[in-house]
């Protein structure tokens, strides 16, 4: 009974992680860069929703599409102004660029007087309602999160498997150059990936807001979505959702059954274990560069012979690390 309720709240939290992780993966697949600003996009979305519902008095269901469209616009603007000029540079500088953008977003929000530094409740129509089912009670906020995530995933799945744009995006993520030669506007699709990522993050922010309140430190959820993306395998969209669910559920149970403090690190413990056991993640594909593949072939032809590694140090730990693969 109780564990089922914990499971539901864990799944709801996991859906949020999964949605943000989805943004990471979308951007990663399209542009080969990792965006550290995803949590901030979510925070901006939540604040935009807050502003629309309180300052302009829009009802929640009307504010939702407005926020999503606005964040999508913000996403494409970011891609155009900041990301596109540095594509192709070392991944590290792009990561730092997104960290800089994240700092700017957080700084800008906290600079808004009277709003940025406080926590606010977001008024949603389903706030505080409870669904009772056979002696168990589930908060409506959690169920809405789960339902909305399922719908969003279905929509994205249909888009990527059926529509021309989705298939073109898949092609671009498999081989950018070849897709470009085929007449696919790769750069515009990269912008679209940012649009999708920002929109999904905005939805996540609006879904999360009734559960945790709106505040400037919401973006730390983004740091927990990284483990989710890695657990699922960084290049896989379903993996992101599954990884998010796994991390959310583990966290919920750790928070209930294990001593205090383990809840916060549970996600990171999971990801460390995952990286040691299965570095490609649950759904990760083996993407080898040509030269890697050459090494692999060489390995298969003459097992054990690899230049530079002819004599491995007889280190126990090293052996352990190797045999885990």
């Amino acid at each position, binding site marked *: 009974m109780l564990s089922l309720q914990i499971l539901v709240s864990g799944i709801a939290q996991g859906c949020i992680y999964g949605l943000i992780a989805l943004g990471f993966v979308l951007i990663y697949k399209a542009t080969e860069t990792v965006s550290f600003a995803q949590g901030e996009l979510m925070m901006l979305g939540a604040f935009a929703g807050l502003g629309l519902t309180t300052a302009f008095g829009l009802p929640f269901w009307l504010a939702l599409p407005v926020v999503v469209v606005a964040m999508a616009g913000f996403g494409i603007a970011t891609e155009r102004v900041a990301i596109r000029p540095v594509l192709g540079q070392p991944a590290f500088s792009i990561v730092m660029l997104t960290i800089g953008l994240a700092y700017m977003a957080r700084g800008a929000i906290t600079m808004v007087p009277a709003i940025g530094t406080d926590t606010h409740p977001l008024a949603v129509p389903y706030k505080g309602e409870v669904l009772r089912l056979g002696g168990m009670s589930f908060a409506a906020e959690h169920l809405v999160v789960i339902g909305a995530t399922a719908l969003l995933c279905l929509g994205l799945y249909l888009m990527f498997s059926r529509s021309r744009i989705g298939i073109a995006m898949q092609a671009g993520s498999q081989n950018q150059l070849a897709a470009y030669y085929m007449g696919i506007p790769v750069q515009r699709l990269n912008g679209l990936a940012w649009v999708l990522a920002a929109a999904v993050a905005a939805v996540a922010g609006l879904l999360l807001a009734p559960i945790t309140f709106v505040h400037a430190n919401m973006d730390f959820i983004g740091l927990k979505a990284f483990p989710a993306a890695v657990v699922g395998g960084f290049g896989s969209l379903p993996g992101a959702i599954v990884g998010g669910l796994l991390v959310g559920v583990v966290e919920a149970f750790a928070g209930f059954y294990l001593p205090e403090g383990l809840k916060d690190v549970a996600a990171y413990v999971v990801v460390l274990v995952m990286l040691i056991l299965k570095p490609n993640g649950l759904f990760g594909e083996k993407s080898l560069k040509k030269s890697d593949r050459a090494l692999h072939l060489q390995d298969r032809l003459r097992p054990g012979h690899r230049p530079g590694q002819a004599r491995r140090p007889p280190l126990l730990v090293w052996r352990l690390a190797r045999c885990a*693969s």
Partner: protein
Amino acid sequence: MLVALLSAPWWLGPYGLTQLSFVLIYSIVGLGLMLLAGYTGLFSIGHAAFLGVGAYVEAKLSALGWPFPASAAAALLSAGAGVVVGLPALRIKGIYLGIATLAFGVIVEEVLARWESMTGGNAGMPVSTLQAFGWKADTGPAFYFVCLLCCVLSSLGVLNLLRSPIGRAFVAIRDSEISAQSMGIRLAQYKTLAFALSAALAGLGGALYAHQIRFLSPDQFSITQSIDLLLLVVIGGLGSAHGAFLGAVFLIAMPQAISAAKDLLPAAVAQAPGLQAFVYGAVLVAFVLFEPLGPYGRWVKVRTWLQLFPFYRRGMFTRQKSFQKSERVR
């Protein structure tokens, strides 16, 4: 330069001297991270953890009355932690390594907060003054000279290391792991070594940091600190030892500059708590977009322009774009 640094206690006030000591401490840590991120191409989003390990070990040891040179133990222990983190680095690359170090950083911070019998938990832990064999660095200048000595020694060490075969191997690994491997460089050993050295420098910096700040609490070694350290090396310019120093100067001088600028700004902006984060972010974005090599890179360009005066061409420093994706085979 050296004269200016040696005579600093006489022409700087006590406040300036404290700030300068901080710059030196952060330079040591920055050198460590530069060795790892700038030269070996492995980046760590959990470097504050090594800083924390060094700081807490030193605090414990000096509470037990060990002399300062024993803080080598702090550095060594950090290096040990570095090896532990470095082990997964043998198998994972790029962003995965970043996540692994991030996870390590978060876990270490949590351990520091929860292991109350050892670290004092969130309540914090006071640190005694630096002392060695009956001599105490209880005045500002004395401590400053200790920092200066450590900084000079570690930068000489790093610069010499980079000229040695080991340093060349690091650079080779950064530029291409596969070619490095083909040249007979053992990736496993060198990557672990890079992690260990980098963590040791961070540990040394942490030991000095503990004595400088005199009071430790886990939130000083959080993810924000790790990101600040990354900011340091990126703004300083990845892949140049000078960058560590310039970055440290930036990291320490920036809050001062911002608080100085607050008087000139309208009150609504100046009082906002997010101003510092915003400026940090903006500077970081500007450097990545316009001068990825940092201020030192700009200086190199100016120097080249002067040396080659009429023959300088604009394209000399444009970097070739490389996309991994287009050559990815599936």
